[in-house]
């Protein structure tokens, strides 16, 4: 039976996004939640089917190299996290009067989710580029959704660098087409010449483009401003999901193994750079943004050393970082401003959730972050490169001190008056994500078999 669920999985969020402006402000959030719940259902169903092999679907019935093919493989299973976290972000901000819950805002969020799902399913380099554009343009719009003064310029810098990256990726797609005459991923890999300058240029273009989209170290300069000025629910989606698309793009690049050395050093630079920059931040969301850069470094390092560990960390970090940004959003919502000194005392549940999230992002054993950190450390030692294991552990140590310093300021300083616990619509998504991060921490072994690179 042809798996029609694949095109349906992409169609639902995109159709939802296209129809969102039809709704009023009140019903738009409910529509958004409904659409993403349906997407989550289909994605979970497909992940279940994944047990007996990769699912492929030729669009329009054209056999593989001649038409566009959609493939649902292990990486595409990340679509479940995309649907879940986007839905929780909408639920978190439902009821607030900001631009996020306006019909156009919900449309942008749904299109971003649709773009990500399409990106995960595309098995054709040009379709990959088109969906990368959908999610990128939505992401530029999402950053500018906040009313802060710096949001405009932060979104513009993100757009400028993102668009430059997309153009370089398109150039590489063009080069691959010139070299092989086809655009289907599997077909291109078969027909690629095994060397030559054009191939290296294409490979370099893909890597540079996706590393910029993933905010790996030298190319991460757009991320802190963008993620810090965006509304917290949006930052959760940006840091948790959009940044991961860059890494998954890297995994889709043909001939990634030839870049082993480059990935090692860029990963190490991101790990250490992100952690050191996080040390000097005093605003919570900028701290979380730099922590994302550091964790992306862990994933890029993992691509070279232990691909299963890197893939698992893509999922784990998405869940954990989304929880942290939502908790930050709850703090800022209640404090009214970015100064969060001492408000933790009257918001015990959010602070506890933030603490568990912080433990997870640092990689304290039973939580989700540990699996990735452990596997990549093993990979580093196995490859005989202990220096990367030391860099990895050192940067998670630095991050631990950053988060500890912040937790002290949050929960151990004198309390502030008239601060109440976060509203339920904010607490439930946070607690759900934190619980999920604990569960993911415990099923690391089973997850690794499922991923099984």
């Amino acid at each position, binding site marked *: 039976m042809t798996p029609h669920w694949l*095109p349906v999985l992409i169609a639902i969020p995109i159709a939802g996004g296209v*129809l969102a402006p039809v709704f009023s402000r009140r019903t738009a959030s409910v529509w958004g939640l409904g659409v993403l719940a349906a997407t989550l259902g289909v994605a979970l169903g497909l992940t279940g089917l994944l047990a007996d092999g990769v699912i492929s679907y030729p*669009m329009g019935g054209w056999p593989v190299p001649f038409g566009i093919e959609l493939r649902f493989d292990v990486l595409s299973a990340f679509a479940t996290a995309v649907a879940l976290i986007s839905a929780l972000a909408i639920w978190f901000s439902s009821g607030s009067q900001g631009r996020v819950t306006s019909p156009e805002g919900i449309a942008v969020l749904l299109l971003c989710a*649709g773009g990500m799902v399409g990106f995960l399913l595309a098995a054709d380099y*040009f379709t990959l580029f088109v969906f990368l554009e959908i999610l990128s*343009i939505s992401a530029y719009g999402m950053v500018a959704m906040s009313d802060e003064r710096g949001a405009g310029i932060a979104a513009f810098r993100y757009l400028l660098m993102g668009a430059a990256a997309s153009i370089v990726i398109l150039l590489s797609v063009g*080069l691959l087409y010139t070299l092989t005459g086809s655009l289907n991923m599997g077909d291109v890999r078969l027909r690629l010449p095994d060397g030559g300058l054009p191939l290296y240029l294409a490979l370099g273009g893909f890597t540079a483009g996706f590393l910029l989209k993933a905010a790996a170290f030298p190319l991460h300069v757009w991320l802190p401003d963008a993620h810090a000025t965006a509304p917290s629910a949006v930052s959760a989606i940006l840091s948790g999901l959009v940044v991961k698309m860059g890494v998954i793009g890297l995994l889709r690049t043909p001939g990634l193994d030839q870049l082993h050395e480059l990935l090692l050093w860029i990963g190490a630079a991101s790990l250490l750079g992100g952690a050191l920059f996080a040390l000097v931040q005093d605003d919570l969301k900028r701290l979380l943004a730099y922590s994302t850069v550091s964790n992306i470094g862990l994933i890029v390092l993992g691509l070279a050393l232990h691909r299963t560990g890197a893939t698992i960390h893509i999922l784990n970090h998405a869940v954990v970082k989304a929880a942290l940004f939502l908790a930050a959003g709850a703090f800022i919502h209640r404090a009214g401003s970015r100064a969060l000194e001492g408000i933790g005392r009257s918001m015990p549940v959010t602070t506890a959730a933030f603490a568990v999230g912080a433990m997870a992002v640092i990689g304290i054993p039973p939580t989700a972050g540990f699996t990735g950190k452990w596997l990549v450390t093993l990979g580093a030692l196995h490859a005989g490169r202990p220096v990367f294991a030391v860099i990895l552990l050192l940067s998670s140590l630095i991050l631990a001190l950053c988060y500890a310093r912040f937790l002290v300021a949050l929960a151990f300083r004198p309390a502030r008056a008239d601060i109440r616990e976060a509203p339920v619509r904010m607490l439930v998504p946070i607690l759900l994500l934190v619980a999920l991060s604990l569960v993911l921490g415990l099923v690391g072994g089973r997850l690794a078999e499922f991923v099984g690179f």
Partner: protein
Amino acid sequence: MKGRLAAAFATGVSIPMIAAMAALPRHGSPDQPIHTHVARHYIEQAPESANLVTQVLLDYRGMDTFGEVVVIFAALVAVLVLRARGERPLPAPSPSPIVGFIVRLVTPFFALFAFHVILTGHEAPGGGLQGAAILGGLVLMNGIVFGPERARAFLPTRALPWLQGAGPLAFLAAGILGGITTGFALGYPAHLPVLHEAMLVGVELGIGIGGAVIFSRLYLAMEA
């Protein structure tokens, strides 16, 4: 100083790129992979009179065009959502009589030509998006000459949210129809030529009108 640094960087980048470009298969040679692989199949299978580019756009690689139409829609909602608050007063232009007259004269012919481009896109040069660009340009021309109010007059108010999504919605309809008739989403049924033709024109029309509305709303969002 920054200018020189950037120039040095750009030339630095250009050297390996030019070397790689030189090493590509000879430009225009008939036996390079582009012509011997997928493209040759499309050309051999082509019906006797068809615009192959539109066929590739809609039939073989329909998903890309669906993505493209969604991209332009995403740009619209992104622009609408990030607009700075606070209305700016509308500068009411006073068109010179000659320009005003010419625009009023030309508008209907523009529209006619645009719809021609849209509707015959699948056989002759042209296509949905090209038509949308012409229609959008028409609305913008009126807006610039007579002021945004005249441009807004072109757009229906109540059906607007539906109309601006015409592109993606048309594709969804074609996808479902294709799924039912040919067993694969976005497949055009060769065995039912009338439906095949209707779907092609329907999708082209959706892209054309949807695109035109989006272009106009983009202009209005920035202008007003």
